[in-house]
């Protein structure tokens, strides 16, 4: 447990909490971007360079921007002040707390996590590419299909109302 | 074909770029403090007082009639008439302005003072570099600053000044003739007076 991990982890957790519980939705989305950045740093620290950069490219560069666009399009940038939380928020908070306690107890009590030594090998981009094109070619194609479907689906969903209104 | 226009446009700009170095005539910019465009004859900024001869204060054409002061729309002229009189260019004794101030920060360059002046004593100047560190006192011009030689006016408005000059020469000639005629008449009268005793 070194200092760098502690700093990044603290940054990530604090910004994640901000993303969930800040009043202004734009602040939430910006905090979310920081969380994604922190996670990318954690990936880099774990030696997964490709995943870390892909995380920044996809999440900070696309998903965070998409969420910001959605916030502005639905004009929910400023909450009206009341009713921030749902009626039975204590139930949700209790469930989340219970989940965390359970997970933490599992992690601490598990024999699997005992004293592992980090593996040395850094995966080169070439190895990832080869794996994508050999072992994982079927998932890759499925993902391609899924992304295409999602693209078309998103366009249709967002446009639907307009067409019927005509 | 797509992109053709871009290439044509870039050729044009490249021609201008190279041309501006090879042919200084292309540069339309006038680098102001060093280079200046000579002012157009009808250019006008703020009024000044015209004087004849070498002595600015003695040669002022202004007779302190105060028409311009009354006509000035923003009321930027202040005149105080003198107590004594001094002769004008025709030799007729006239008042002169003891104080003649123009606040150029108020003046709107309308030229009405010039148009109403019966004595061609106030004219529009082309001087525009009037910036000063004192925005109240520095822009209130007194008659010493306002007085400028008729030669200056001839330089900036040659056509107009030539007209005025001709008129004034005519005036002077008439005045002289009149003076001469008066003198003659006087002389005749004197001669008559002298002759009367001879006759009588």
């Amino acid at each position, binding site marked *: 447990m070194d200092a760098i991990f502690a700093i990044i982890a603290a940054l990530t957790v604090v910004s994640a909490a901000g993303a969930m519980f800040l009043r202004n939705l734009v602040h939430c989305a910006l905090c979310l971007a920081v969380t994604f950045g922190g996670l990318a740093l954690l990936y880099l620290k774990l030696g997964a360079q490709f995943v870390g950069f892909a995380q920044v490219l996809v999440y*900070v560069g696309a998903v965070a*921007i998409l969420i910001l666009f959605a916030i502005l399009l639905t004009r929910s940038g400023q909450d009206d002040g009341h009713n921030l939380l749902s009626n039975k928020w204590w139930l949700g908070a209790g469930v989340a707390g219970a989940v965390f306690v359970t997970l933490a107890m599992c992690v601490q009590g598990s024999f699997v996590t005992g004293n592992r030594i980090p593996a040395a090998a850094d995966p080169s981009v070439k190895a990832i590419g080869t794996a994508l094109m050999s072992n994982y070619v079927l998932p890759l194609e499925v993902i391609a299909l899924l992304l295409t479907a999602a693209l078309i689906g998103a366009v249709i969903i967002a446009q639907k109302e307009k067409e019927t209104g005509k | *074909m797509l992109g053709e226009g871009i290439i044509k446009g870039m050729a044009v700009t490249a021609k*201008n*770029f190279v041309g501006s170095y090879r042919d200084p005539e292309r540069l339309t*910019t006038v680098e102001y403090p060093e280079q200046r465009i000579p002012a157009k004859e009808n250019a006008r900024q703020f009024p000044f007082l015209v004087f004849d001869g070498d002595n600015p204060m003695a040669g002022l054409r202004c007779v302190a009639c105060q028409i311009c002061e009354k006509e000035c729309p923003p009321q930027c002229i202040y005149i105080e008439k003198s107590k004594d009189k001094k002769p004008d260019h025709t030799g007729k004794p006239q008042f002169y302005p003891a104080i003649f101030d123009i606040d150029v920060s108020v003046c709107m360059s309308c030229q009405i003072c010039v148009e109403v002046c019966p004595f061609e004593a106030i004219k529009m100047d082309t001087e525009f570099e009037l910036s000063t560190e004192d925005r109240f006192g520095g822009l209130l011009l007194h008659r010493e600053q306002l007085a400028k030689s008729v030669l200056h006016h001839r330089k900036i408005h040659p056509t107009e000044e030539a007209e005025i000059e001709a008129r004034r020469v005519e005036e002077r000639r008439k005045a002289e003739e009149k003076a001469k005629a008066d003198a003659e008449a006087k002389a005749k009268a004197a001669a008559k007076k002298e002759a009367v005793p001879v006759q009588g």
Partner: protein
Amino acid sequence: MDSTTFFANLAAPGFDQLFVTLKALLVSAFPEVIQPLVSIVLSISAIIAVFGLLFAITTVVERKGLGRIQNRPGPNRVGLPWFHVGPLSHLNGFGQWLADGIKTLIKEDIVPRSADKVIHFLAPLSLVVPVLLAFSVLPFGRNMTPIELDAGLLFFFAVGAGTELSVFMAGWSSRNKYSLLGAMRALAQMLSYEIPLILSALTAVMLVGTLSLNDIVVAQEAKPGQWLANWHVFTPWGFAGFILFLIAATAESNRSPFDIPEGESEIIAGYYIEYSGFKFAIFFLGEYFGLFAMSGLAITLFLGGWTAPIAFLSFIPSWMWFFGKLFALIALFIWLRGTLPRVRMDQLMNFAWKFMLPLALINLVNVAVWHYTGGGMVSWVVCTLIIGIPYLLLGRTLFAGQKLGPRTYRYAS
């Protein structure tokens, strides 16, 4: 690059490796423990100094160049202070950047009362930091890549994504409708043009088979026995890719003719309308750094990076080649800015999605065809046709239904 490589290069000093040797010498002067730190600090300060100066010079050169294009002399007054004697006292206006810098430094920093102060403050910083990070993977010369990353290109695009967020932050936090409009325009434009940008960059990656920028440059160097270098721009797909990349890079760095996010005549200055003083200067700096980074990447991917175009010219140091090409590209951008009028928003989007994207996709196929046909005369013809015919067809459909006759004026003429 690690210190062992530096010491290896000490053995072969020369003009080409001047800076590498110098850095190795400087680093070796420090105790062993802090050597990596010193190496990093040296790289960072070199990048900031060199590109800061380049930014300063570019602002003046751009204004002078634009002036000459419009038959004006441009700024030619400001020289060095206290040197107003002799013919060089004006430096022909090349002291302008210093005056501008001092002016922006000492100007009042105004923050709108209803602005989101924290985000308003963070926005310029989050623009400059990612852009500076992007420089760290560019190969400026032989052995002169600050950080040799296996996924250098991915890193470049990943940090580039951060700038989009900062544009939004600036536009939203200012509480000004024009700044928000500018930010939304900028975001839409950046997201749309990022796709052709990455797709056209991928062509080089596909052929070379690596994401490491230094390896891409090495692959373009002239092989022993060749007189012409293997620059990607010398091939049909590479030429098309270079043009597509250049257009997308222009849009990505908000340069004219794609400067509608700033659109002075419509939305005043876009997302940085509410910035003044030093924060504005940082935005300005960030824009230009982005331009330099994009130009550097274009050079690396298509113009052979630090390699010489003709083999016998390789006696000229590699870093000189890189910066020479950088200057040439900057000049090209200035030239374009002086030539083309600003496009409309719908034209911009149409161009991105109906022209750039299909062509970039076709170009990817083109590279594969080039690779499998071997790069001979046949592949030249085939590849030119593969990219040329869609270009003509798409160019025609883009203008279908538009009358582009000579312009008529109702009152003038």
